[in-house]
C-alpha cells in the first residue's frame, strides 16, 4: 500500500510547496506516495542529490521556479517521472532538470505541458541528464527539452513526451504530431532508450 500525498491527480504529493513557498532539499528520499513525491506550484524549490522512487509521480512543477539537479534520481515511479506544466502567463524562473537521471518509470520520464506563448527565459529546460527505460505507451520515454517559443522543430527522437496547453487551457496533442504548435524542441542525442545512455554534452540541450 502506498501512503501519503492525498489529492486528485499530480497536484498532490508528500511534500507540497504552495504559492510563495520555498524549499531547499538535499540528500533526501521521497517514496511510496499515492500521488507525487514533490509538487511545487507557484513557488520555488531547489532539489539536489535526491531520490524519488516508488511514487505514482516522482515530482511535478506547476508554474514554478524549481530545479532538480546534482545527480538526483527519479526512478521506478508507477507513472511519470517528472511532470511540468507552464502557462503563457508564467514569467518567473524555469523548471529545470540538470545532471540527473530519470529511469524506469511507468509512463513518460519527463512530461511537459507548456503553453507556446511562454517567454524563453521561463521555459523548462535541462541538460546533462540520463533519461531512459521509461515506459509510456505512446511516447515510451522522454528527453528533457528546451522550448523555443515561436519555432517548431519536430523532435528527432520518437521518445520525446511533450504536450502543450492551448491559450484556452485545453490540452492538445503531443508535439511532434502536429505542426500547429509554436513550440520548438531539441533532444538529447545520446538518449538511446536502452539503458546505455551517457550524459549528453552541455551544448546538446542548451542550444
Amino acid at each position, binding site marked *: 500500500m502506498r501512503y501519503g500525498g492525498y489529492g486528485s491527480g499530480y497536484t498532490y504529493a508528500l511534500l507540497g510547496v504552495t504559492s510563495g513557498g*520555498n524549499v531547499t532539499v538535499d540528500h533526501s528520499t521521497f517514496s511510496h506516495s499515492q500521488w507525487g513525491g514533490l509538487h511545487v506550484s507557484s513557488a520555488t524549490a531547489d532539489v539536489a542529490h535526491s531520490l524519488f522512487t516508488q511514487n505514482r509521480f516522482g515530482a511535478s512543477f506547476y508554474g514554478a521556479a524549481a530545479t532538480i539537479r546534482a545527480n538526483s534520481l527519479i526512478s521506478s515511479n508507477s507513472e511519470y517521472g517528472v511532470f511540468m506544466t507552464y502557462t503563457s502567463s508564467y514569467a518567473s524562473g524555469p523548471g529545470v532538470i540538470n545532471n540527473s537521471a530519470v529511469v524506469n518509470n511507468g509512463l513518460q520520464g519527463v512530461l511537459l505541458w507548456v503553453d507556446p506563448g511562454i517567454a524563453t527565459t521561463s521555459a523548462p529546460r535541462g541538460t546533462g541528464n540520463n533519461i531512459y527505460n521509461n515506459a509510456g505507451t505512446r511516447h515510451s520515454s522522454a528527453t528533457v527539452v528546451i522550448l523555443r517559443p515561436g519555432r517548431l522543430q519536430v523532435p528527432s527522437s520518437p521518445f520525446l513526451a511533450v504536450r502543450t496547453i492551448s491559450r484556452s487551457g485545453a490540452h492538445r496533442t503531443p508535439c511532434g504530431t502536429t505542426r500547429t504548435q509554436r513550440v520548438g524542441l531539441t533532444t538529447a542525442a545520446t538518449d538511446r532508450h536502452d539503458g546505455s545512455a551517457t550524459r549528453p554534452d552541455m551544448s546538446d540541450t542548451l542550444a
Partner: protein
Amino acid sequence: MANSPYVVVGTVNVWSIATLTIEPGVVVEFDNPFRTLSVGGTLIAVGTANARIVFTSIQATASPETQVVMEPQRVHLGNGSGFV
C-alpha cells in the same frame, strides 16, 4: 533527529512566516494517503550522503515504539519563528 521518525497524522502546513528545518537523518512518515506536508513558507531539508532525509509511507519504515506524532499546526518552532 533524536525523535525521528516523525509521523504526519494530518495535513501539516508551514505557513508563510515560518521556517521548518529538517535535520539530516530524519524520517518523516505519512500515516495514510490523506496526508501532505504543505509548505507556504520555507522548508530546509538538507541531509548528507550518510544521513539522508526520508519522506515516505509509514508502511515503509514503521517503528511504532519510537514514533513522534506530528499533529497538524501544533509543532512550535520556537523563538518567534512561527508555527508548522
